[in-house]
């Protein structure tokens, strides 16, 4: 258990896939190297999981097998998102935000979900979001297999949305709102996190919000119970618990976002089950161009009480 809860080491899914930063081409991953990486952290559980993965003759991880595993993992993760009504939570922020951006402006609004995986949030928003005319929802991810699966699922239910294997910050079409779920904790060093927020400073971007685990004393235990109960893949158990253990505090998120995305007013949303003092599983880092702030807070209505210090 100790090794699973150690927040120092990487998640399995961080290491079993690798991409060229420029071309986004898949790079080969050596199984032994991944195992050795986990050995450094005495993470026997992760070592066992990686050792069981299928390899090619040269000891490289079999990409097709890894992709199948990741699709399965994302399907299991979708179960938790459904159970916690994550689509509704994203919508609750998007609707007042879109209404704010729409004031006196009819230009198209493009929402991009960073690291969308199999695109649950994007598909949910496109199908149930009722975001109105002129709003396009797109998902980007580095993994082509996940993007293909997301597109297949959208086509199967005739959902109008787009999925791209791309870097979210270098898209050809302008993005108005960036969103993500469970991405922030993958940037370990505060400098990396600051750099991530700096990338948001594109002229077209008017707002962003990122959901991630909220760290607290009970989070790893709660996460463990839920991942053991609701998920089947050992990779999910490991990465799910580790995500909760190594999630950034709200102070770190706010500080890094204010340092990185200097042109935005940033704050935390929904840290507690309002009006109780109990922390939510996920909290949301929210950023918006200062010119929209007042109107947005007004549009949030009673939920504005859940926004902390948006500046």
């Amino acid at each position, binding site marked *: 258990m100790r090794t699973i809860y150690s927040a120092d080491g990487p998640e399995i899914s961080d290491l079993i896939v690798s991409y060229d930063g420029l071309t986004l081409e898949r790079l080969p991953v050596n199984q032994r190297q991944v195992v050795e990486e986990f050995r450094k952290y005495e993470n026997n559980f992760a070592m066992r999981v990686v050792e069981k993965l299928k390899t090619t003759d040269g000891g490289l991880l079999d990409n097709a097998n890894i992709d199948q595993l990741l699709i399965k993992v994302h399907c299991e993760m979708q179960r938790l998102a459904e159970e916690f009504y994550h689509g509704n939570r994203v919508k609750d922020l998007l609707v007042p935000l879109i209404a704010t951006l729409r004031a006196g402006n009819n230009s198209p609004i493009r929402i991009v979900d960073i690291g969308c995986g199999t695109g649950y949030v994007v598909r949910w928003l496109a199908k149930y979001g009722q975001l109105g005319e002129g709003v396009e929802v797109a998902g980007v991810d580095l993994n082509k297999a996940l993007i293909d699966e997301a597109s297949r699922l959208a086509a199967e239910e005739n959902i109008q949305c787009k999925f791209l294997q791309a870097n979210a910050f270098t898209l050809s079409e302008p993005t108005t709102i960036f969103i993500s779920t469970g991405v922030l904790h993958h940037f370990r060093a505060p400098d990396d996190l600051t750099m991530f927020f700096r990338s948001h400073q594109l002229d077209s971007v008017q707002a962003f919000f990122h959901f991630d685990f909220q760290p607290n004393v009970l989070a790893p235990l709660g996460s463990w119970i839920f991942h053991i109960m609701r*998920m089947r893949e050992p990779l999910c158990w490991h990465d799910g618990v580790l995500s909760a253990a190594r999630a950034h505090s709200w102070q770190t998120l706010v500080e890094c976002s204010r340092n990185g995305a200097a042109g935005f007013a940033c704050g935390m949303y929904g840290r507690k089950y309002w009006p109780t003092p109990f922390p939510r599983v996920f909290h949301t880092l929210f950023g918006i161009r200062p010119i929209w702030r007042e109107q947005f807070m007004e549009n949030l209505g009673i939920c504005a009480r859940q926004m902390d210090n948006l500046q």
Partner: protein
Amino acid sequence: MMHLYGYICILYVLAVLDFGCCGFRTASGRSALLNKYNYFKNAVFTAILLGHLFLVVPMGALFFLLESAADKPQVVSDLEQAMQGMLCVYIPYTLLFLLAMSIRTIPLVDCKSLTSILLLGPLTFVRPMVAVIGIATAMTFSQHAEVFILGALAVFFVLAFELFMEYLHERRGRRRALPQS
């Protein structure tokens, strides 16, 4: 005798409810589509139907015990008390589950997800323990070894059912993943 059959009926209803929940749980996390109404409906009904196969042995054993008992009134009385003991554990568990489900009808996202965190998740977690505690409680009311064996058999089949359903889903998933020839 009416008393005994009343207890059997209540335990049967709880078992059917458990089979349905098993069907839902074991089907969850396997389909990434958004609209899964029919998918879950089929999963729950299939589980309830298949679950009855898992009732055959404990039910058969129960009726065999009733028919073959030398001291029938004593066995019936023992069974009634044992089942009462089981229900002392299973009814509160079921009520908590039903409470969680009824709270989920409140159209507030936080209410719904809190039921998962505080009730549904932990209830799933303790389910095997609750099943065993129910039998242990039943045993405190009974002096017959046969009644204990019967209870253990029933719990074994109820718990084994979830594993069986997981196995069926895995097998179906593997078959789907095979390349088309």
